[in-house]
């Protein structure tokens, strides 16, 4: 199995190549078969590899150092494919590296990817670009797998940019609408800003450490850089720049809501489950650096905390179902960042796993709703769908509950609780942000549930949900609820399997477990969540009039609109960066430098004209000039 590691990204890539070259000539069923098969096989392979990896790991009794002080993980599979770049003093291989962190990501990506592609075979059935869609999706999965399996930062960067590209392609999938194109461009360019910082970080790492191999970078950094050193800080900051761009954290979050212009499965896979969490992956992957730069690690936490509140409030005010989910994604990734920031490494990854399930589920369900309601995105024009779409209701409810972290019965609860309980012992302020966020999350989750499924029916749904779309919904709903049980805290009598697995790679959260504090934190989270659900229930289901009242004209409405517009970041960036850039570029369209050369030409022409006047054909003038020339020469000779 170990030798087949390369096949995991190669299978979707092969799917892409087949579809890109021949897809337009293939019947739709064949296209669907290729796409699903490629991902399905990859998923199966990943499971097989994973089982062997874990088995082997357990057999060697490999355990994380208890103190978490020996920072560089050792248990990993490497598969070197070929030397990519080899210049004097710079070597970079195409090398795959499987450790427990990447294993978790690979499993989630292939599984969720397969589910979503299966769903898409139904969802996209009527679309013109059927094969193109699946080609892109397969390419995306291939790139995402490259990203997480890369054993070299340059290869990681390839995957990193590759997923960005696929995101761009899929956001602008319906290319005829300029708005989609704009959203796609925005997504690419904003993330590219972060990527550039990332790239500079790579230059720094390479220049200082002489390698980009993940393992080597981590061990050399640990060996050469003292904690808190400037270089480590700079490197960590630059990589963080890449991470916040990709993961849509403050202040580079503005692209994600617009990215909802793409087909809904794309939003589910790329802009919820996988790609946007690449930033989390990167920071976790480079955790040694962040431990060497504690200020930056704190910054990660602060960004996460700020983002989760910011995005939660924005999500609360959205009327577009997908935008609401997008802000919710930003907010949930904020939780992951917060987790990384407070050193709850595995908790963050755990939240990634549960989030992947429940958020993709929510998007897929939203896709069904939107499609069956004639492309209606406005939640206030939905309503009363409980009876018309029971399957969708129950699955959506499962997702929303998990998102809201309904205590004990949902996966989201376990991950969020783990994050916050570790945050409690690390940073109270961040903890309170998290708790506040939990309240908001519960509020907006159940706002959605209430507005969409209860109340009056405003738009009549059409058709039925096909089985290929229903199946992923059900599977993901089960996981959204049950996935938490892979990592039940010992406090609740469970066995934290995922945490143990991740601790093969990531440092454990530390030993300062304070049971009382943990219980307190858990209780607080549970209660705020329940309170949030209750308020949502009250306002949006029992007393819909209240919801109107909240947004009455006045200051509150202003605030409401401000949050609705994502706190004006778009407006600000537009004025600060976009318009000056575009304006300057347009202003100088004809290249002012050229005017210098044009003026030389102009001067020549004018001189030509003036000189031509001297050629007036007058004999006596000619003689005069000759005489003057002679006199001038004499004058020069005699007087100078």
């Amino acid at each position, binding site marked *: 199995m170990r030798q087949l590691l390369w096949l995991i990204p190669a299978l979707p890539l092969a799917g892409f190549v087949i579809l890109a070259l021949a897809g337009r000539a293939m019947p739709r069923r064949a296209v669907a078969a290729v796409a699903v098969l490629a991902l399905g096989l990859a998923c199966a392979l990943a499971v097989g590899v994973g089982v062997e990896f874990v088995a082997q790991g357990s057999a060697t009794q490999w355990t994380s150092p208890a103190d978490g002080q020996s920072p560089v993980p050792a248990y990993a599979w490497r598969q070197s494919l070929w030397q990519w770049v080899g210049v004097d003093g710079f070597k970079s291989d195409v090398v795959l590296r499987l450790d427990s962190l990447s294993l978790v990501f690979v499993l989630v990506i292939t599984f969720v990817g397969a589910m979503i592609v299966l769903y898409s075979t139904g969802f996209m059935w009527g679309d013109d670009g059927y094969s193109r869609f699946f080609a892109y999706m397969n390419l995306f999965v291939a790139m995402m797998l490259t990203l997480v399996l890369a054993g070299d930062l340059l290869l990681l960067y390839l995957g990193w940019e590759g997923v960005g590209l696929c995101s761009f392609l899929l956001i602008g999938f319906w290319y005829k609408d300029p708005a989609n194109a704009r959203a796609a461009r925005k997504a690419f360019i904003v993330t590219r800003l972060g990527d550039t910082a990332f790239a500079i970080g790579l230059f720094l790492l390479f220049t200082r450490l002489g390698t980009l191999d993940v393992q080597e970078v981590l061990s050399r950094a640990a060996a050469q850089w003292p904690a808190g050193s400037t270089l480590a800080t700079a490197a960590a900051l630059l990589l963080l720049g890449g991470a916040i761009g990709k993961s849509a954290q403050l202040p580079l979050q503005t692209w994600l809501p617009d990215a909802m212009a793409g087909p809904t499965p794309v939003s589910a896979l790329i802009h919820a489950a996988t790609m946007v969490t690449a930033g989390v992956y990167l920071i976790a992957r480079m955790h040694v650096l962040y431990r060497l730069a504690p200020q930056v690690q704190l910054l990660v936490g602060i960004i996460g905390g700020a983002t989760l509140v910011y995005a939660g409030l924005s999500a609360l005010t959205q009327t577009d179902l997908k935008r609401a989910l997008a802000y919710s994604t930003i907010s949930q990734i904020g939780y992951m960042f917060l987790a990384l920031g407070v050193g709850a490494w595995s908790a963050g990854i755990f939240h990634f796993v549960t989030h992947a399930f429940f958020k993709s589920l929510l998007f897929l369900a939203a896709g069904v709703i939107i499609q069956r309601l004639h492309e209606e995105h406005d939640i206030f024009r939905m309503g009363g769908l409980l009876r018309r779409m029971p399957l969708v209701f129950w699955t959506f409810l499962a997702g929303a509950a998990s998102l809201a972290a309904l205590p004990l019965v949902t996966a989201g609860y376990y991950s969020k609780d783990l994050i916050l309980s570790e945050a409690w012992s690390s940073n109270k302020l961040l903890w309170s942000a998290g708790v506040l966020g939990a309240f908001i999350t519960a509020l907006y989750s159940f706002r959605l549930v209430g507005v969409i499924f209860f109340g009056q029916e405003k738009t009549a749904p059409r058709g039925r949900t096909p089985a290929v779309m229903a199946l992923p919904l059900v599977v993901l709903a089960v996981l959204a609820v049950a996935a938490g049980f892979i990592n039940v805290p010992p406090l609740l009598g469970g066995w934290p399997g995922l945490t143990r697995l991740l601790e093969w790679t990531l440092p454990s959260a530390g030993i300062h477990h304070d049971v009382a504090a943990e219980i307190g934190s858990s209780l607080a989270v549970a209660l705020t969540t329940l309170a949030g659900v209750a308020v949502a229930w009250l306002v949006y289901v029992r007393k819909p009039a209240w919801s109107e009242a909240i947004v009455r004209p006045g200051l509150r409405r202003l605030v409401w609109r401000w949050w609705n517009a994502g706190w004006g970041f778009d407006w600000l960036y537009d004025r600060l960066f976009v318009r000056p850039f575009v304006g300057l570029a347009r202003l100088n369209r004809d290249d002012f430098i050229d005017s210098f050369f044009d003026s030389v030409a102009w001067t020549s022409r004018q001189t030509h004209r003036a000189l031509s006047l001297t050629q007036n054909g007058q004999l006596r003038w000619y003689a005069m000039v000759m005489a003057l020339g002679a006199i001038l020469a004499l004058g*020069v*000779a005699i007087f100078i």
Partner: protein
Amino acid sequence: MSWNWTMADAQALLPLMVVSAAAVVVLLVLACCRRAGVAGILPAGETPATRIGAVLTVIALAAALALLPVAGAAAPRSVTFLVIVDGYGLFFAGLLLSACIAVALLGHSYFRQETSAGGEFYVLLLLAAAGAMTLVFSRHFASFFLGLEILSVSLYALAAYNRASLAGLEAGVKYLVLAASSASFLLLGMAFVYAKTGTMDLGRLAQLLNAAPQPALVTVGLLLIMVGVGFKLALVPFHLWTADVYQGAPAAVTAFIATVSKGAMFALLMRYLVGVNFTLQYPLLAVLTAVAVGSMFVGNLLALRQENVKRLLAYSSIAQLGYLLVTLLAAGPGGRELAIRAAGGFLAAYFIATLGAFGVVSLLSSPQREAESFDDYRGLAWRHPVLAGVLAAMLLSLAGIPLTVGFIGKFYVLAAGVNANLAALVAAMVINSGIGLYYYLRLAIALFTPSRAEPPPRVAIHPAGAAVLAVLTVLLVAVGVYPQPLLRLLAAVVAL
């Protein structure tokens, strides 16, 4: 003065004598022919007379050319105190004679249907050639003046040769008045120099002037001489006549003025200034530098958007002579040989390209109609593809593009300039090459663009002219690709 005529002197002077004698012979033959035919063998009349004149002229010029190596066997040799026959002079004489042959053939093509043209063209041409050869061999003010005037007076007549043409008349009058005025400047200058130094012999003058600081009167005299020379070379500010005369004169004559007349005068100038190791003193140096730079800029800028091809070539020749002056200024102690060879190489290239360009003009023209406006050349590639190609090649050569001899010439001059550390002049030359490119290419590309106006009728191409152009084009490319023979020749014979 003790001086004995020897066979060696005769041998050295043979080419010059052949040309001079030919002028007389052709004159007589023409007169006889026109009256009676040649002893009844040929019918009397204008056309055969012209043809005989042409044949005789070409034969005489070719003979003189062939005799150059014979004369070279006796070189270097001073024949009387007036004339020196040396490798330098012989090289330029060869250039001049070759150019004269080309001009004779081009003239023959040009006057083909013109019965009234008579054969005097060839007499005047031979006379002018004799004058020009005298100039390149001159080593004394007297021979200088004589050669110059023989050349000039013939040219007045040649310029106004088209009897029906008002433009020809205008060209002749302008040339006469201005040339005569400039000649009087020159004479006055000679007189001043002579008054101060008591000699008109080149070698002696050089010794005198190098020995002592230059007296003011001599400086004035030299500068006045430079007026006359500058006029002949059409250097700024004595250049105003150029365009008008080039335009008004028949194309073949224009080719002669542009090449032979200027080449001879430059050869003389170089001999006088460089050949005798005469160190250029500051005033003259400054004036010459200013003249060189001015000629480049003024010539090129005047040509910039010129719509008359003959005028354009006239202005371009002003600039070309400006480049050539760089060699003169570069002929300091360290770079003398290089500069002289560069001048020879550049002039050879200039001769080929200029003769070729005016040759095309001449082939397209007739005494009734000069093909001189841009419209005559637009779309030439369709009417006369070969002629268009030849003209384009000539223009590229004038612009100094590789694969043509012009590149070799320009390279040589640039090398001389760089060798002598003449940074400013080199920079001026480079910039002017850019300006020059504009109009050369402008004309070249016009050949390949469809004409807007009614295209002029296709003219028949005379074989003599076509042969000249063929030879010139072959030379242009051959020397451009493999300049070694030319360089060897220059190295072997051209030294002062």
